[in-house]
């Protein structure tokens, strides 16, 4: 009955007569059932969240997590504040793991391919089949990604006992970094970088805020280093690279080097720092050769610029990072060695970079073992292959020949939990559990371990089994004993050893405390040892590597800030619709090109071009970007899936199709930055699904900055003067009129749109520090997860109907790719400003938006009739409108947002789910405020400053957001809003009196005068 009954019809009926609804009839379908527990779970109170600790499984960083569950369902993940990696924050990818847990494209159970079709099979039969086929295979491969420590150990035990070989492959492997650590200091590790301890950073293309090693931890370290401290000091950051990534955009200076010349710049800096090489130990003669003058031509950087940079670096404590994936060229290991030498001569080893307490779970052997496996598979020498936690059919260049070789293996098993390009070729699928349903563990660094525990029972739609349990069962069927019945037993066995190492007398108590805290200290974490440079004994070549192909356009294939490599996480609408932090484009791929180059080629934004190399070609629209050198073209990874699920397939292109399958000789890593590319226009155009309005502030003080030197100068100045205030209150609210009201008078007494309560009542407010914000967009996804914000689909985004409650605006102030110099890119998270004198309020014909007594500009969904006047009158464009119902199981129309079962299990029960015809916007996480108020009222306690944390603040790695009661002069928000850098966006134009105060970015260079 209700299917045909729309909300407005229903309201009409109600309006006519209360009892009239009865004539609509009724059927048993409409009855809601209350299903009580049979046996009450001890840790669940209906309506109250239960939290579990675990460790994120999205990347190797291993962020400690708190998982919020309601009535046994996971509804949100957040960082564990006690954890040394996440420190309470989490990135977009971590948040989006919920959409993998509840992904409608997960396998419903084990499957066997018969006659080309996947048919259900029982676990028993499937495991028996694996046991038999492995016994007769005569050797097999087990391909894996990062699996967590205990599982990785079990895999290698299993393979060792069954004549198998484990090959770990990850397209973004840090093989050159490990090899360089070995060459430089004799330590085969990925070192631990401590950004917070540095005062000056130089990144040689390492994208540490988005995809390199540990973005959440490094994001926190970076913001603490680069944010203005109480003494008015501030750490500096220079980015050395051919293209500005998100990390690069956060730099104070940009040195746009010739592609592949990181090593030269690093050595020339080392030359200056070490007095011509005298203190460079065994690298003395090498460093002495590379003076700034000698490398100036090759790098395209003036000697004077390198010298200044080096002198600043020598001032210390400093830290050189990288090269990241941008440096994965033929000289990748040498470039990493050069950076290690630079850190060493500047005295940073043991101070800001630690080789004695590295990142443990990061190691991966790079591409070389995989290449050998491909050769063996192609030769028909491999009887079986097992694939776990990786998607090599997608994540290896097509030119590697993996697909063909893999296809020729007679028995292929995939442990993928949902379809991917590799599983699509498999004969048998044994779906693994999602990490939120699994046991496991990870080490963050020596001594620091985190348990992974299931936060909920397995999602019942999917008959999954942990791969560890499958391997143990298969081993038993093969007549082998691996020492444990279940993977849980295996894990507990290891943790009993940990307990002994940690000196705990009660292993069970140690285990339970580790589960509770989400972290265990097992032994000591060494720190502070310096390392001595070793003889450069292998044929290191520091000179720029060759690039294949004609022309002068170097092709840079870089990991997406949203997906990383995108091999396993692209089928998530939250990530697909998250605007890329650099380009602001959603859903599809794009080709980055300098505006001058585009002009020379007669191209503009949205022109579809063909990129071709000798290895393949792809087609994507142009996006012009001043933050890339004119001789470089960049393409993000993560697009172009063909068989990864309904949300990923067909979006964009797989950039790896353009790359050769070449190994960097020293480290065995895959080279990414190695070829030139040919650009041909197709003559066609397509609109970019971008949320970017303008790259320029057009001289409006939206995201102003203040020079470091000017800080404190105006602190003693007179009261701020401003011209006549105007407010949008004329002609029904649409026309600005002058007002004599003072800012603090708003909202005016007797206002029809609400008044603030008396002094007892809080006034909620927020400050956002633009000096700390890195634009990483973690808050955007956190908000989406918390507030049931729908995704709308590519077509709607293209029409400007994206629905994010937070829009991360990005403005270019100073971006020059032609020579080294100051860089100024501004980020501004724009949310509802909760204006004290809100232009949206007087124009609403039904009073659906008004002020609460505690200072929130609220949106009453059930009052809203969807006139959209408020949206039109909002100077900040932060109100978003549900043009369709995006929350039904089926899309209203193809391509529109929807929430298919069981994705709807993720919906936050504390927040109303909206349907079409409703306006919505940031609510200051009012449900969290109300929950704390309820609790305080019941317990008779008072809410303390910092107790209420909105989802965006909670998630922010940079600690840029502060929320609280601005009426309490001692609160952090009041302190920070009263600071020298505080300003409010467009306040003077329309006298909106926002509750959101921004703190100006601080730059090292002078700032243009038109800004306030």
């Amino acid at each position, binding site marked *: *009955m*209700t*299917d045909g*009954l729309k*909300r407005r019809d*229903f309201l009409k009926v109600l309006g006519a007569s*209360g*009892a009239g*609804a*009865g004539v*609509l*009839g*009724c*059927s*048993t*379908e*409409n*009855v*809601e*059932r*209350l*299903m*009580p*527990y*049979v*046996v*009450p779970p001890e840790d669940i*109170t*209906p*309506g*109250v969240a239960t939290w579990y600790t675990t460790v994120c499984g999205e990347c190797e960083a291993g962020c400690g997590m708190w998982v919020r569950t309601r009535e046994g369902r996971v509804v949100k993940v957040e960082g564990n504040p006690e954890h040394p990696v996440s420190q309470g924050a989490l990135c977009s990818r971590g948040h989006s793991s919920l959409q993998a847990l509840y992904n409608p494209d997960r396998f419903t159970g084990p499957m066997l391919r018969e006659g080309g079709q996947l048919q259900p099979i029982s676990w028993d039969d499937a495991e028996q089949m694996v046991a038999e086929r492995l016994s007769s295979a005569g050797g097999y491969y087990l391909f894996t990604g990062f699996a967590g420590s205990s599982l990785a150990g079990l895999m290698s035990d299993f393979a060792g006992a069954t004549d198998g070989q484990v090959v770990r492959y990850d397209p973004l492997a840090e093989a050159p970094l490990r090899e360089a650590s070995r060459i430089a200091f004799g330590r085969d590790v990925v070192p631990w970088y401590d950004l917070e301890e540095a005062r000056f950073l130089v990144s040689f293309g390492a994208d540490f805020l988005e995809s390199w090693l540990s973005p959440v931890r490094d994001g926190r370290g970076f913001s603490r280093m680069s944010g203005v401290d109480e003494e008015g000091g501030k750490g500096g950051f220079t980015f050395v690279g051919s293209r500005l990534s998100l990390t690069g955009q956060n730099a104070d200076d940009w040195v746009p080097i010739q592609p592949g010349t990181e090593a030269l710049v690093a050595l020339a800096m080392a030359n200056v720092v070490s007095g011509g090489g005298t203190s460079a130990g065994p690298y003395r003669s090498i460093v002495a050769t590379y003076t700034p003058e000698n490398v100036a031509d090759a790098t395209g950087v003036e000697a004077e610029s390198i010298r200044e940079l080096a002198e600043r670096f020598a001032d210390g404590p400093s830290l050189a990072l990288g090269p990241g994936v941008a440096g994965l060229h033929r000289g990748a290991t040498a470039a990493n060695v050069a950076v290690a030498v630079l850190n060493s001569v500047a005295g940073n080893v043991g101070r800001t970079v630690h080789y004695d307490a590295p990142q443990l779970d990061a190691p991966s052997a790079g591409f070389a073992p995989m290449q050998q496996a491909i050769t063996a598979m192609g030769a028909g020498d491999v009887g079986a292959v097992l694939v776990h936690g990786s998607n090599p059919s997608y994540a290896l260049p097509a030119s590697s020949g993996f697909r063909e070789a893999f296809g020729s293996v007679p028995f292929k098993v995939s442990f993928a939990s949902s379809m991917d390009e590799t599983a699509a070729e498999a004969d048998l699928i044994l779906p693994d559990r999602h990490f939120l349903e699994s046991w496991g563990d990870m080490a963050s660094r020596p001594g620091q371990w985190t348990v992974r525990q299931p936060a909920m029972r397995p999602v019942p739609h999917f008959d999954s089994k942990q791969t560890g349990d499958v391997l143990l069962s298969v081993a038993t069927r093969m007549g082998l004993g691996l020492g444990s019945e279940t993977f849980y037993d295996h894990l507990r066995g290891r943790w009993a050893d940990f307990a002994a190492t940690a000196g705990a007398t009660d292993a069970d108590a140690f285990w339970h405390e580790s589960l509770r805290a989400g972290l265990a200290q097992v032994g000591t974490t060494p720190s502070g040892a310096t390392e001595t440079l070793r003889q450069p004994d292998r044929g290191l070549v520091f000179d720029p590597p060759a690039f294949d192909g004609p022309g002068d356009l170097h092709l840079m294939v870089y990991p997406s800030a949203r997906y990383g490599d995108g091999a396993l996480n692209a089928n998530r609408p939250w990530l697909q619709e998250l605007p890329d932090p650099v380009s602001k484009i959603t859903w599809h791929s794009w080709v980055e090109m300098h505006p001058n180059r585009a002009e020379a080629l007669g191209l503009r934004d949205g022109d579809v071009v063909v990129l071709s190399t000798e290895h393949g070609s792809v087609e994507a629209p142009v996006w012009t970007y001043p933050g890339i050198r004119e001789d470089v073209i960049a393409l993000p990874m993560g697009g172009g899936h063909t068989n990864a699920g309904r949300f990923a397939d067909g979006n964009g292109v797989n950039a790896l199709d353009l790359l050769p399958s070449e190994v960097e000789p020293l480290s065995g890593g895959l080279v990414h930055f190695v070829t030139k590319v040919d650009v041909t226009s197709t003559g066609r155009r397509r609109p970019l699904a971008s949320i970017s309005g303008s790259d320029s502030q057009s001289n409006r003080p939206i995201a102003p900055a203040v020079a470091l030197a000017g800080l404190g100068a105006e602190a003693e100045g007179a009261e701020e003067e401003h011209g006549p205030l105007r407010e949008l209150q004329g002609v029904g609210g649409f026309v600005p009129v002058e007002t004599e009201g003072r800012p603090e008078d708003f909202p005016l007494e007797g206002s029809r749109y*609400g008044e603030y309560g008396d002094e007892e009542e809080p006034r909620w407010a927020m400050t956002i520090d633009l000096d700390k914000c890195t634009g990483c967009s973690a808050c955007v996804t956190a908000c989406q997860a918390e507030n049931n914000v729908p995704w709308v689909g590519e077509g709607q985004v293209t029409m400007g109907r994206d629905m994010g409650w937070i829009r991360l605006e990005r403005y270019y102030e100073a971006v020059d790719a032609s020579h080294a110099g100051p860089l100024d890119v501004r980020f501004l998270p724009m949310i509802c400003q909760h204006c004290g004198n809100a232009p949206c309020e007087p124009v609403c014909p039904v009073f659906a938006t*008004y002020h*609460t*007594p505690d200072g*929130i500009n*609220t949106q*009453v*969904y*059930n*009052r809203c009739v969807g006139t959209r006047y408020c949206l039109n009158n909002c100077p900040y464009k932060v109100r978003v409108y549900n043009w369709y*119902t995006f*929350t*039904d199981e089926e899309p209203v129309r193809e391509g529109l947002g929807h929430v298919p079962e069981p994705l709807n299990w993720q919906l936050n029960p*504390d*927040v*109303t*789910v*909206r*349907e079409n015809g*409703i306006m919505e916007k940031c*609510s200051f996480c*009012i*449900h969290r405020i*109300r929950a704390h108020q*309820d*609790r305080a*009222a*019941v317990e008779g306690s008072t809410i303390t400053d910092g107790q209420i944390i909105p989802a965006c603040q909670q998630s922010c790695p940079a600690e840029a957001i502060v929320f609280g009661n601005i009426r309490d002069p001692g609160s952090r928000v009041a302190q920070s809003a009263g600071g020298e850098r505080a300003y409010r966006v467009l306040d003077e134009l329309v006298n909106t009196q926002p509750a959101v105060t921004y703190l100006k970015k601080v730059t090292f260079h002078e700032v243009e005068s038109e800004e306030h």
Partner: protein
Amino acid sequence: MTKRWIGASVVTLTFLASPALAQAQDSDAAVAVTDGEAALVQPIAFPHTIHAGVDQIDCQYCHFSAERSVDAGIPPVGTCMGCHQIIGGTDERQQAEIQKLRDYSANQESIPWIRIYKVADHVHFPHLRHVAAEVDCATCHGPVEEMMVIEEVNQPLAMGWCVSCHMERGVSRDCAVCHY
């Protein structure tokens, strides 16, 4: 705001509009609601008259989370069995109903109660806050100790009814206290 609440509200309204309701009360049967064709019957004829009336069991003994959660809580089958392990009923009709309960328990199945009280999805009603304010359960739920079959009393769970109480008690009637 989804269609589900509309459906639920229609059911709610129908309770009040239907003349069949009166018959249901009279006949002492487990009929919760009927629109003349489909009769909706609670899976077990649970008599609040005996539990809350005769035995005077405190509401929160079964609705265990009302004072600490937004949800009052529906008793787990195990809670029912805590007593009905022993108590088997005095007459045949009671014994038959209690046997249903024991069957649910033995089969480890949940009892699919028909939901009677539901505010719309865009309304947040925190039980804990109202319990703390010493609002008697009967204020909203009526004299359940006199009800053989639970039905909505006093109000159609409409906003005006909520607001009138808030006004009487001098507590907030700001929209965003309940709507967010």
